[in-house]
């Protein structure tokens, strides 16, 4: 009888979205609890994560209501650590290759996503950089790592490398389509146009493939994200 698994998440967070994707791809039964990040319940920091962040999971312990967590369950935070944990709990899922070299490639892809893709991408989206150049360099690095055939990031099946980047791919797509962000007006659309160039075809094919997977399609709420971003972004870079 598998142990209980509860994910504390929020629709705005690409990091909790990573875990939703991995769990969906591995076909795992779990409870998904949306934490109201704008009005955090006191028990969340007290009983789940002292830093009050999502994603956090609880594993094991008695099967309780997510709002009444048990001290007996194992609590785990940090999306990349949670992704590896899920992959190792469900080794038949293929989320992590058994071969040491392929395993290292998955970890390297994830590290590249965080360092060279998410980080500059976030800076640009938040209006903290002049241009999206850093993000485009990241796109090229990711593209250089994609396996042949560009269906998956590493090898020939869905791994936590894909789960790691897919939520970001979806959010960046919304950004270039809607132009919503802290960057100067029009820069979002401009980036979208640049990415149509043949030199980014492999990356765009991979992106399209990820977006079409049921795991992402079913957990994605583009309208909600666009609406929330419009509300949250109060200033734009000139």
């Amino acid at each position: 009888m598998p142990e209980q698994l509860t994910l504390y998440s929020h629709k705005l967070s690409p990091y909790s979205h990573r875990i939703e994707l991995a769990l969906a791809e591995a076909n795992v039964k779990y409870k998904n609890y949306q934490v109201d990040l704008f009005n955090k319940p006191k028990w969340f920091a007290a009983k789940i994560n002292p830093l009050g962040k999502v994603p956090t999971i609880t594993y094991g312990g008695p099967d309780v209501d997510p709002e009444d967590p048990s001290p007996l369950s194992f609590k785990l935070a940090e999306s990349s650590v949670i992704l590896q944990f899920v992959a190792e709990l469900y080794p038949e899922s293929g989320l992590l290759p058994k071969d040491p070299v392929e395993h290292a490639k998955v970890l390297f892809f994830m590290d590249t996503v965080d360092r060279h893709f998410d980080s500059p991408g976030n800076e640009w989206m938040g209006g903290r950089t002049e241009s999206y150049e850093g993000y485009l360099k990241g796109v090229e690095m990711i593209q250089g790592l994609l396996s042949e055939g560009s269906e998956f990031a590493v090898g020939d099946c869905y791994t936590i490398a894909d789960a790691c980047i897919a939520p970001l791919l979806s959010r960046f797509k919304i950004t270039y389509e809607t132009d919503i962000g802290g960057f100067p007006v029009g820069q979002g659309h401009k980036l979208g146009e640049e990415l149509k160039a043949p030199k980014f075809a492999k990356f765009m094919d991979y992106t399209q493939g990820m977006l079409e997977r049921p795991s992402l399609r079913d957990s994605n709420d583009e309208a909600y994200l666009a609406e929330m971003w419009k509300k949250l972004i109060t200033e734009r870079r000139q």
Partner: protein
Amino acid sequence: MAPEQITLYTAKICPYAQRTEIALAEVGATFKRYEIDLANKPEWYAPKVNPASKVPAIAYGGPDVAPEDASPDSIKLAESLILVEFIADLYPSSNILPADPVLRAKARFFIEIVSSKFTSNWMKFASGNPEVTHTTLLNGVDAIQDILPDGAKYAIGDQYSIADIAFTPFWARFMLVLQKGIGSYKDEERKNFLKAIEDPKFTKFNGYVQRLLERQSFKSTFHEDIVEAVFRRRFGVPK
């Protein structure tokens, strides 16, 4: 099944590289060690081994060649924490990464805390960055002590693991600069830290780091004289 050839590109000064050396020593691997002069990198290093031009890096498999002549047939891997996991994977019976997923997760979470609260801060402190004071580092110590298990020898229990490997080289270098009085910080800061860390509330942490520094795999891969000499040149002495 014996793994294939392993060539490690490393540098004695570098704490990231020392992580991989400790891991290789713990698992008892046979490997070729090649020292990269970080101040004067060979021009073949970036194109043939690591495009990011950093250490550590590993060339795995392929023909048995001289390190300076890395073969395109070997797999090139980089990033110290990834290399430590890779080494643990190649030698699963060494147990530096336990089989239990919960313990593995605890090890990786410990590493995240070390990374966010300590590894970048100690270097900023030594270079005299005014944003980082002795308090910043004490907060890092606190965060780490908070997740150390009670009554256990190491980060995730009595078994030495990748969590300990990740932290030791950084703690050792930090202690070296403080004890030898090397660095561009104000000397007050150094004294404040050394005094504060003696408080009984840090007993658990102090016991832990002492065990880390006593570990044979750390001692055999730490070249204190070289590290001290380089740091003196790089950081100078306190004001």
